[in-house]
């Protein structure tokens, strides 16, 4: 049951991230997310990294209150958010933005689709127009693009 809850939260977090990314990061917190698109903050960590504080605080609160109640559902919701955060950093920092060259030559269709969609998102340098706000799930057409070529 607890495992299911963690998995459910993990999946819901993709939706939440999509919403936050589309309506908040590209909305009233655009000033924090801007340098991630136009690289106006050269050579240093991006202000965008501060978003992880925004994800960490609810996780800490949920895990804390959940622990006080003998590790009830709140704790596992927090755990789901934390695991999503870890997956996000793993995929975003390591794979998509190629901070390391681990997966540069991957032939995995899922990873290729993610990278392609994220590139599409970064094609737009401004705040207003934009597409592909998800991280671990992207529009079907990108999956089709690579899963087809993988089969043929």
């Amino acid at each position, binding site marked *: 049951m607890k495992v299911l809850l963690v998995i459910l939260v993990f999946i819901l977090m993709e939706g939440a991230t999509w919403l936050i990314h589309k309506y908040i990061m590209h909305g009233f917190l655009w000033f924090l997310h801007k340098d991630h698109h136009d690289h106006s903050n050269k050579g240093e*960590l991006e202000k965008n990294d501060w978003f992880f504080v925004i994800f*960490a605080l609810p996780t800490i609160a949920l895990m*804390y209150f959940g622990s006080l109640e003998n590790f009830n559902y709140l704790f596992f919701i927090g755990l789901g958010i934390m695991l999503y955060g870890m997956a996000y950093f793993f995929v975003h920092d390591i794979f998509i933005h190629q901070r390391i060259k681990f997966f540069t030559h991957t032939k995995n269709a899922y990873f290729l689709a993610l990278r392609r969609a994220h590139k599409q998102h970064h094609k737009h340098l401004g705040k207003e127009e934009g597409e592909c706000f998800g991280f671990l799930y992207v529009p079907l057409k990108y999956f089709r693009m690579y899963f087809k070529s993988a089969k043929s």
Partner: protein
Amino acid sequence: MMAYTYALILFFTIIICFIASFDKRIQFNLQFGSFLKAAILVAVPFIAWDIWFTAHGVWWFNTDYTLGISFFGLPLEEILFFICIPFSCIFTYYTIDKYYKWEVLSAFNNLLVFVSIIILSVVGLLHTDKIYTLITTIVTILTLIYLHFIAKVDWLTKASLVFMLLMLGFFPVNGVLTGSFIENPIVNYNPKDFLGIRMFTIPIEDAVYGYSQFLLVLYFFKKLSKAK
């Protein structure tokens, strides 16, 4: 002979690294000045913390194992601890860093800081009544936030891996201090003030405390040796 125990622990902690410092391939001896300045800079607040905890009985020292010279309630050896332990740690990092750049590791910094801050915050919040646990988590969280977001260093994951390697030295040294292999511990802890989770005889807080001390000395060492 017993009175030399703590002094001998320190001696064996540094002696191999000290001799190896003069090796032509390492030449850490050229960095002694930068190291000493960095270590003293970090030692001052850590010794103040140590004096505070000793005065409040969070921990105390068995003087059967020390030379008997003390300052502000701390045995001389305990003060030298803040130079000797970082010496071997920074020597190890410096030597590894000379030969292995491992630049790819910086990609894991966000992941490392994210998970560490969450775990430390939750543990700290749950144990505000245990002062060693609480202060250790606060200091480590602030250290990580400063180094990652303000100083923006790129070596956190690398330093953390080196710290894991340093556990090979940490276990015997801190083991003896906390009572492994000898009749009584040299450092005794008030059971009310820490989690009570011990790795062999070593309270888990000691490892986290050592981690933030190591990161801070390394940070100042890198700054000072670059400035030279």
